[in-house]
């Protein structure tokens, strides 16, 4: 007997919340980025948990795709960070002074 799915779902929801909180409050692009990964992990956990409860392998297959997307995003995102850094030598979003909210 396993623990109820709800526990894992709550864990995932909290993880998602922590990730989005970090994304909204941290100013370092790299860390915001990591928070993005946290959020995607929460999604994966949710999918796997539902796959278990629904008895459907589709949820696990989906996780696969989410991971690929995460990898693709990281590739491009880090490229952008490097590109920004080459111009500015900083990755703090607030120092992007030429932008106004």
């Amino acid at each position, binding site marked *: 007997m396993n623990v109820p799915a709800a526990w894992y779902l709550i864990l995932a929801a909290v993880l*998602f919340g922590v990730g989005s909180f970090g994304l909204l409050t941290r100013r370092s692009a790299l860390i915001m980025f990591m928070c993005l990964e*946290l959020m995607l992990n929460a999604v994966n956990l949710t999918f796997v948990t539902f796959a278990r409860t629904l008895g459907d392998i589709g949820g696990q297959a989906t996780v*696969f795709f989410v991971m690929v997307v995460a990898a693709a995003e990281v590739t491009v995102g880090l490229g952008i960070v490097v590109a920004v850094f080459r111009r500015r030598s900083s990755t703090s979003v607030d120092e992007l002074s030429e932008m106004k909210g």
Partner: protein
Amino acid sequence: MIAIAYALPSILVFATSALLVLVGAVGVIVLKNPVHSALSLIMTLFGVAMAFVAQSADFLAAVQIIVYAGAIVVLFLFVIMFLGVDRREAVRVEPLVGQRAFAGVGVFITTAGIIALMARSHWVTGPPAVSSGGVAASTGSGNVRELGTAVFTTYLFAFEATAGLLIIAVVGAVLLARRERSVTPEEGLA
């Protein structure tokens, strides 16, 4: 009580993975040094992988470690070290007064709302809950084969589109990494 209802090992597994996940996640957002954040992220990733194993998604757990821990976070660390941003981040800069509090409240409300909504739903309302209401069959250990079958049948298009996604990501990354060489006319085409 709980231990009677659910086997103790599964609770232990859950507790451990939850601890890893949450401590890691909080670490990511509070630690000042990006490298420490990345380490913290690895911790979360392991926690999630553990949760995967506990829910009989072993293959995904392995992929999780290989892809996330083995490649993605390494890439993060690579960039951090490559750019040397680790000891310079000014984390204390706060652009809008109270943004942190605002974001905190907003995220808290959203998360709590989602949890509350899900709780009202008894967590699952998919076909099993409606049609049979019974316990879903475990996918068992040999799920690599099932997973592969699903990927090449139900999710065939998604799989193929993923290939496109990866190509464009690679092309994009290469373009981003290329440097523009500026040459003044006097210098000639050196």
